[in-house]
């Protein structure tokens, strides 16, 4: 028995291993590894996609310009971080509250879950349109409500000061449910015993939440925040369809700026350098979270 087992996982191993993963490896090489390398290559050149003029090698020039002489990049970077931070914090708090709210049995549980799933599965471009209509300063619903309450109407997406907040609101609406569902799954998988013990010891609900639920839920919370942060950093659809980075450049995030550089200005070289830096940032943040989770996430 033992002999058969070891032979099957060694002699058949190498061959079979490749058999299983080879198609995916080929795909990964062509569609993921090559593009990343090509982006690195392009980031050292200037090129407009012209068929007549090939890429022109300029060393680290693009990076230098980007980091020292492109205020749009710095601004976009700060905005990206602001957007992500604000959205994810609000989503975490609201998500936790909702998870606690719908944890445990109640009538219409399946229905409620389905309804809060809708924002995150609905096509982002479509819901962006719906929000666009609701934000519309003259005919939109929000100002209609404000006016009926005798409050001053707002500009929402039409103002430099409110546009980012409005986009964050949409993101919160869209992704709080995901946070809630992940945390709910975490809550469901918590062990019963510590809670029983705490009750016997006379801890009240608030104490149990603070000293048991929260610490036990921490690993799940860190993972949820990690997943959300990665996606929030890369938010594209709703920003591009609702403001395209405007008014002015007030909602231009790195991803939008990268797109504009690539496919509106066709500065493929400097766009590539921007994307490399962006990738490094996202990767760095991800690794940071993984470290945090390793250190504080396990109890």
């Amino acid at each position, binding site marked *: 028995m033992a002999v058969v087992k070891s032979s099957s996982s060694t002699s058949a191993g190498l061959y079979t291993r490749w058999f299983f993963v080879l198609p995916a490896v080929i795909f990964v090489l062509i569609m993921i590894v090559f593009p990343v390398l090509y982006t690195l290559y392009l980031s050292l050149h200037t090129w*407009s*996609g*012209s*068929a*007549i003029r090939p890429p022109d090698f300029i060393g680290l020039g693009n990076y230098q310009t980007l980091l020292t*002489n492109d205020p749009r990049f710095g601004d976009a970077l700060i905005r990206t971080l602001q957007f992500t931070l604000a959205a994810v914090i609000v989503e975490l708090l609201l998500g936790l509250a909702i998870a606690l709210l719908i944890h445990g049995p109640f009538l219409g549980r399946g229905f409620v879950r389905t309804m809060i799933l809708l924002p995150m599965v609905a096509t982002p471009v479509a819901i962006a349109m719906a929000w666009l209509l609701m934000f*519309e*300063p*003259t005919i939109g619903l929000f100002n209609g409500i404000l006016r009926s309450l005798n409050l001053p*109407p707002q*500009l*929402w*997406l*039409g*103002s*430099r000061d409110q546009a980012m907040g409005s986009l964050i609101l949409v993101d919160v609406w869209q992704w709080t449910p995901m946070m809630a569902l992940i945390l709910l799954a975490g809550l469901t998988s918590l062990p019963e015993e510590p809670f029983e013990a705490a009750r016997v010891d006379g801890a009240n609900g608030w104490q149990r939440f603070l000293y048991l639920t929260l610490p036990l839920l921490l690993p799940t919370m860190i993972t949820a925040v990690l997943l959300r942060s990665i996606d929030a950093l890369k938010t594209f659809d709703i920003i591009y369809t609702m*403001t395209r980075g*405007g*008014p*002015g*450049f007030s909602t231009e995030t790195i991803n939008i700026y990268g797109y*504009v550089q690539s*496919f*509106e*200005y*066709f*500065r493929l070289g400097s766009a590539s350098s921007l994307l490399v830096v962006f990738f490094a940032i996202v990767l760095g943040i991800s690794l940071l979270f993984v470290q945090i989770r390793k250190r504080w996430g396990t109890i």
Partner: protein
Amino acid sequence: MRKLRIFTLAVVLVFCMSGSFALIQAQDDNPLVAGVSDEFAGTEVRLIFANHPWNNAIQRLLPQFEEASGIILRVESYFEDQLSQRLQIGLTSGASQADAFMFRPLQEGKLFASNGWVMDLNGFVGGEEEWNWEDFQQAARDTVTAEDFVYGVPVVTEREMLYYRSDIFEENGIEPPETLEELEQIAAQLNNPDEEFYGVVIRGRRSPAVTQFSSFLYSFGGTWLTDDGQSALDTPEALAAYDYYGNLLRNYAPPGTVNMSWPEALAIFQQGQAAMWIDADVFYANVIDSTQSVVADTVGFAPFPAGPAGANQYNITSWALGMNAGSQNQDAAWEFIKWATSQPVVTELQTLGTPGARQSVWDSPEGLSGFPADYAEVVQIQSARGVGYDRPLVIRVGEARDIVGAPIVTGIEGGDVAAALAEAHSAFNAFLESDG
């Protein structure tokens, strides 16, 4: 036998459905398709058009061309920004299936030509005597020609114009403004935000606003570029123009102007929520169409008001038809372009409301017959003057517009225009250095 009967029935049905037998019989005499050859019958020609009144108008005539030529037309329409992007993406990679397309010579012309994406039409336009290239206005031909390279045939000319509510002006006993100063006074007088009625509406979104702002800039005596190709944004004239535009829109335009391109601004005017709208004259058909516009019967037209340096509105060839350098159907595509820009078709399009580029059409009573008299008058005044470009003449126009458009937004929002302009000035100079 039975097959034949079904066939006959089908033929009869087709004829019934397509209107009347007589109409199809009369095809040969149809002046609109008089010179169209059926040499390319069966060829499929793919066209990419902008979402533009010219497109709406010619769509109605396309079946007649298809009928006469046997060419099958496949049309795709995009909003202008997207069109530009689509074309660049397609043309860069050589993957665009489009044979011919609408493009903005002032926006994409230089880029397309310098990257070898558009076909040089010199060989085509020269050989068509009856079609007559010389009939196109000199300025229009200049716009689409660079050192003998003809990269398109002009289809639409535009001038910036003032649309106003004649009923409201009459009620208040005011005449349309003749100067920018008067414009601001009237906007202030008629502005009534409590009733959701605004003095004026003009585009305020960063990049789209640039073209409409250009007439203000010129009329204040400013311009984009100095003679030696440097940024001209550091002049007091430019600052005055940016200041004026920002103040006007901040004080007397609807909220959210900074997010408006022409469709949004037009919609405000169509819904009767603004006393004045300033934009290209080609949009008048949308304004006087009572199915879209509640102000159809109460709109007046006036020339662009004069600033300190006179009334220097833009007067441009805004759209042209170009041919994909990689097209497999160049001759058939030319057949289409030739037809779409022929004298009878341009006349017809002009009666349908789209100002074209042919002098003979402008000179004929028929060419003006489709326009309201007051509109035609204004267009004729403005055709004779103005500046031939409405945006900086550079290669990467899109990027330049983002730069020079930024202070417009700052102005509308009530920020520090001088600082924003100084920033734009240096950014523009840096851009100009790399643009080449």
